[in-house]
């Protein structure tokens, strides 16, 4: 198993290198820079600032020195928040994003899982069509549409829930989590339905029924584990989607998470912040994909045995 994990982590190095390189040169290719603004800045001041941040070096020198710092875990100073490093900014914003992502994942797994399982028990009936149609709508509905609709309905018309903020008023975390999680709830519903349908047609389900077990025990004891493996395997990609999706949701609901920093950094040409956040998220995505693969293999006794040998 450790060999497999080590191998996967080694594979991640070239992936991250490509991500860093492409991002580095892409943001530099965008017109403007961190110190260009509408107000005219005295050329000497601008030159001094650029020298301070190493922007007077050639692009390639900047690139290599960035990589050098990165190996030490240093993501550099922010260009727009003087005196604060990118590491600090990520450390400030990420816990909020992680919390939002965690709640969204809970929403996705609980609503999606239950809907999918219910649908799978009576395929091609209303019990199947209704949740699956809802799931289709969930997949098609972008969060920048769903968010405002939810705000309008639950925040403004019904006045049940706060419309923005994070951790200020009780209940203000509900709408963002639902907005972010609903798309993934829809995917989870479809995956768990397909997985359960597959398992419920297996011979060993007939064996379980022949034992005289009631149907709910057949489902919970015999079908669930195999049926939900596709969902577990999807957790890694879902996590990646939740992180990038959170940028939109954080903007809609005014949440001080990493996503908002990221978006602002892009507008401000805060080169180090953009790069730092990209590297950080790419690393997380690699790690979570690995974790979900390990978990999916672990749930299957046959793969588990092979896995432990490696």
């Amino acid at each position, binding site marked *: 198993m450790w060999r497999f994990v080590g191998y996967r982590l080694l594979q991640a190095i070239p992936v991250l290198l490509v991500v860093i390189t492409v991002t580095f040169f892409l943001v530099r290719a965008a017109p403007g820079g961190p110190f260009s603004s509408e107000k005219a800045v005295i050329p000497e001041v601008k030159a001094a600032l650029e020298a301070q941040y190493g922007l007077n070096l050639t692009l390639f020198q900047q690139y290599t020195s960035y990589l050098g710092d990165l190996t030490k875990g240093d993501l550099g100073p922010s260009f727009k928040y003087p005196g604060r490093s990118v590491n600090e900014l990520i450390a400030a914003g990420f816990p909020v994003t992680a919390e939002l992502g965690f709640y969204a994942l809970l929403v996705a797994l609980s609503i999606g899982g239950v809907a999918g399982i219910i649908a799978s028990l009576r395929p091609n009936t209303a019990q199947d069509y209704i949740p699956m149609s809802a799931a289709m709508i969930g997949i098609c509905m972008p969060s920048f549409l769903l968010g405002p609709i939810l705000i309008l309905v639950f925040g403004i018309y019904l006045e049940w829930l706060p419309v923005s903020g994070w951790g200020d008023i009780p209940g203000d975390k509900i709408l963002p989590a639902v907005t972010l999680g609903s798309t993934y709830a829809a995917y989870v519903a479809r995956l768990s339905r397909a997985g359960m349908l597959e398992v419920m047609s297996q*011979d060993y389900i007939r064996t379980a029924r022949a034992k005289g077990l009631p149907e709910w025990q057949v489902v919970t004891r015999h079908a669930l584990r195999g049926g939900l493996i596709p969902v577990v395997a999807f957790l890694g990609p879902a996590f990646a989607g939740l992180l990038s999706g959170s940028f939109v949701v954080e903007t809609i609901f005014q949440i001080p998470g990493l996503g908002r920093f990221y978006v602002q950094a892009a507008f401000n040409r805060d080169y180090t912040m953009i790069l730092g956040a990209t590297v950080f998220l790419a690393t997380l995505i690699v790690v979570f994909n690995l974790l979900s693969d390990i978990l999916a293999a672990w749930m299957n006794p046959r793969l588990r045995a092979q896995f432990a040998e490696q």
Partner: protein
Amino acid sequence: MLTAENLGISFVTRMGTNKAVDGISFTVEAGKITAIIGESGSGKSVACYSLLGLIPQPPGRIDSGRALFQGQDLLQLTEAQLRETRGRDIAMVFQDPMTCLNPYMTVGNQLMEPLRYHKKVSKAQARERALELLEEVGIRDPASTIDNYPHQFSGGMRQRVMIAMALINEPKLLIADEPTTALDVTIQAQILELLAALQKKRNIGILFISHDLAVVADIADTIVVMQEGKIIETGNRDDIFRHAQQPYTQKLLQAIPTGGKSEVLQKSEPLLSIRNLSTWFRQGKTHVKAVDDVSFEIRRGEVLGLVGESGSGKSTIGRSILRLVPITSGEVIFDGTDITALAARELKNMRSRLQIIFQDPFASLNPRMTVFDTLAEPLLLHGLDNRSNVGASVLKLMDDVGLARSFVRKYPHEFSGGQRQRIAIGRALATRPEFVVADEPVSALDVTIQAQILDLMRELGKEYSLTTLFISHDLAVVRKLADRIVVLQKGKIVEQAGTSELFEHPRQPYTRQLLQSIPGRVLRANAT
């Protein structure tokens, strides 16, 4: 103990109503074995599953009849009442032990489940009982294997676990649905013996479903023959075997491969020589020696039977000869050429002279190609025909393998298993090969279809002057076709001899064991 009367079951689909079981009656007595025999689609499994409410309704529908078991009509019970009976008084053993155990649960937990659910015993007590029973069904060292998962057991061992699971609540009736069909012949014999012994000891009734009369010949008390949803003959075992009244029963009896090939083999030069062939597969750091230093010859025009259990390497030899798997060492000399040394282009030319027929005609035909496409492809590929005259060759092939010419535009799913195997045979013969590897060509087929395909292969062998390597786990089938037999075990040759020689004077203990495992001992005793 169980009396089914006038049982009728239909399946209602959009295509219409299909009567699967049409007014059948049978009984199972305590301490006796009743066997229901019929081909796939005859309704035998449907009838038995309906007794326990295991037919999904809809599309299934019970039209008529009653099934009295201990004074209750099973068909009138509610789902909850039926569940009380299921797994407690009536238990089931299914056909394929590979798929009937839950791969995500340990064998022990699955085994204890019926006991824990129906009798509400403690986990420790259930475990103790499970260990006793595993011991009784012949699982070695149950204490250390009870917490293993099903994939860690062999097919035969899994079927033993299934049997233990069925017996754990000491049921009064056991329904066994083709319990040995998926198993090797020696394992089949062991499982049949085990079932018979357990049945005697517990004095329970068994309803034994099978497509193979030979299998039940040794154990059944009463035999019920079904065809197309109806019972066509019922009788005790000896009556059925000695004085079967119905032509269909007689046909089933005749389809049991007994006796050997009558022709005397003329000596001819070898067409194919295999010298010190080894094919190993890497598995982690070690090798699995699937084929280990095997040498034999096949003479021109001969049918050589290659016999062994699963894992003996017989299929690997067939594939090694055609270079469908990379060989580790050794030579395969075909008509003076070492096939193992051929370059890709030469191999392609050679392939038109060597062909293979696979076991599963469902999996080996491309579902998106019509019969015409399937048969025309090798002809065009090897340049034996061009677009304009390939049609005539395809129709000729279809005549040869006994397929109606009108089927030419149909797709594989529109055919039965036997018809598909005919297509597969036609595909193999399209290039007029000199040598054919037939890898278990009839094991996936019903017995009567088996007999037809074997007859076809024998005729075609003569017509096309084929040399055949006939691979099978079933000695009785091989006996019908082969001139000589090579017996394999664990990748090595155990014994090779002429067919009648091998059957009459087997020299090796393993060969003897294989021969004794052929079902239908009673039949053979009657025949001699």
